[in-house]
């Protein structure tokens, strides 16, 4: 639970897709240490046989009629895109980037 290393923090940053500077990693290592100490008491609770609550309401399987409703136009969907090409979003290369 404790003893964060900069290597662990860099790993978490990778999982979170957060580009961090070395200075940010160093500062976050200290902050995560302090914050995780507050959270640690939850790991110690005796709640093994308790069902988890993962939903703020008790609604189950809420559906609507399967009918076509108006949706965004292609222009609206693309209006905030950083880059688009012939009606498509332009995305960074995600395969064969040479970084394994």
């Amino acid at each position, binding site marked *: 639970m404790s003893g964060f290393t900069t290597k662990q923090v860099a790993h978490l*940053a990778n999982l*979170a897709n957060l580009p961090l500077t070395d200075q940010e990693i160093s500062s976050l290592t200290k902050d995560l240490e302090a914050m995780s100490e507050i959270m640690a*008491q*939850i790991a110690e609770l005796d709640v093994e046989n308790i069902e988890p609550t993962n939903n*703020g*309401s008790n609604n189950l399987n809420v559906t609507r009629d399967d009918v076509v409703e108006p949706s965004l136009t292609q222009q609206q969907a693309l209006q905030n*895109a950083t880059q688009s090409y012939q009606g498509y979003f332009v995305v960074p290369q995600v395969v064969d980037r040479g970084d394994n």
Partner: protein
Amino acid sequence: MFRQQSIIELQESLKRGELSSVQLVTHSLETIAKYDDQLKSFVTLRDRETLLAEAKQADETRSPDSSPLHGIPYALKDAYLTEGVTTTSASKVLEDFMPPYSATVYQRLNKAGAILIGKNNQDAWGHGGSTENTDFGAARNPWDLNKIPGGSSGGSAACLAADMVAFTIGEDTGGSIRNPSSHCNTCGLKVSYGLVPRWGTIAYASSLDTVGPMANSIEDVATVLSVIAGRDSKDATTIKPESTDYYDNIAVPEPLTIGLPLEFTQDLNPEVKAVIEAAVKEFTKLGHSVKEVSIPYLRHGIPMYYLLALSETSSNLSRYDGIRYGGDRSTFTAETKRRIMLGTYALSAGYADKLYKNAQKARTVLIQQYNQALKECEVILSPVVPRSAPTRGSFVDDPTENLLADLFTVIANVVGVPSLALPAGFDKDDMPVGMQLMGSVMSEQKLINLGYQYQQQTNWHRQNPPLS
């Protein structure tokens, strides 16, 4: 203007022709021009000519049957999508984001004829309790410019206290409506989870997020809630209340038993304690009885809430990839990066069971204990915040202190119940101190009735900040 008259009274004057929406909007714009350079309660203001044209149209189309909100100026926290008006969540990541559609709450207010003046400053993504975690200049408290207005809906409470609009819509995930209401001497309702639709709301933590009204009196809270509450087919978590006529159904409550949680009264700041004791006396005078109750898991509220909220936010904020909308992830603030990182840690392999899953299980126990306490009382009374508004910068310098400020408020979100925050007094520095009334799921009317009754006997909510 708005601080001294209820929305219903304003609308009656409008219908009698003694007042116009053009006058109201002009008052809003002039007050904002006078004070908002200091307060920074708005991130975006709509164009003056457009607003005056809307006000003129509201005056021309008003009829005896018009909604109480017809032609009434208001503001939205910048967490709600507003087609044609930028929505930033107070973050550089969404600096230029123009929503292609509107949140349900905005659609409902538009339909009622309310006039959106602008979008309020907040802690970015709801991450904070001070409205300092914003990329558009930290907001300040109208009661003392060296202090924080609270957060994350700090701009919404500050602009209300400064009489800039008649009401605002905040968002509450762990106290974000109630905390700034307490610090700015305004009222705010965190609704039962699902009572007001979240469609078009920028998500912080989806199992905890709620949309709610902020206003100058409980009467106004009820007026606004009557318009925005109710089922929405676009939000599957919404619930259908028996009635949404919260204002029309205001009535003197039958004598109630009010519970004071032991876990919250121990080690309480003496000045906050004095305010709560005075409120207890007032409720007793009104015929209610007050007793101590115990909810042992309240002491785990902060870590439980933060493990859940930050896990959910790390997931929700993963959508900001800078491709479909928004900018680069490197532009998240330091506070938001901390929260994403802690959430990612709590969900990561080897830790998820002991952290995230245990927090979900502890949530079940807390709900059971809360419901058990409600067998001994009907309403729970507690402070909103551990002390009156801290000095600016103190939360930025100490991230853990920022988390602990939510001690009393997170419970209502974790349990999913309503909590009504209202002014209850002042400390020795003349800074406002609020209280909160919590109930069972869907007990909004009961809380409104009790709060309304209290405000008939007290005038804390009519005290105004010393702005100049």
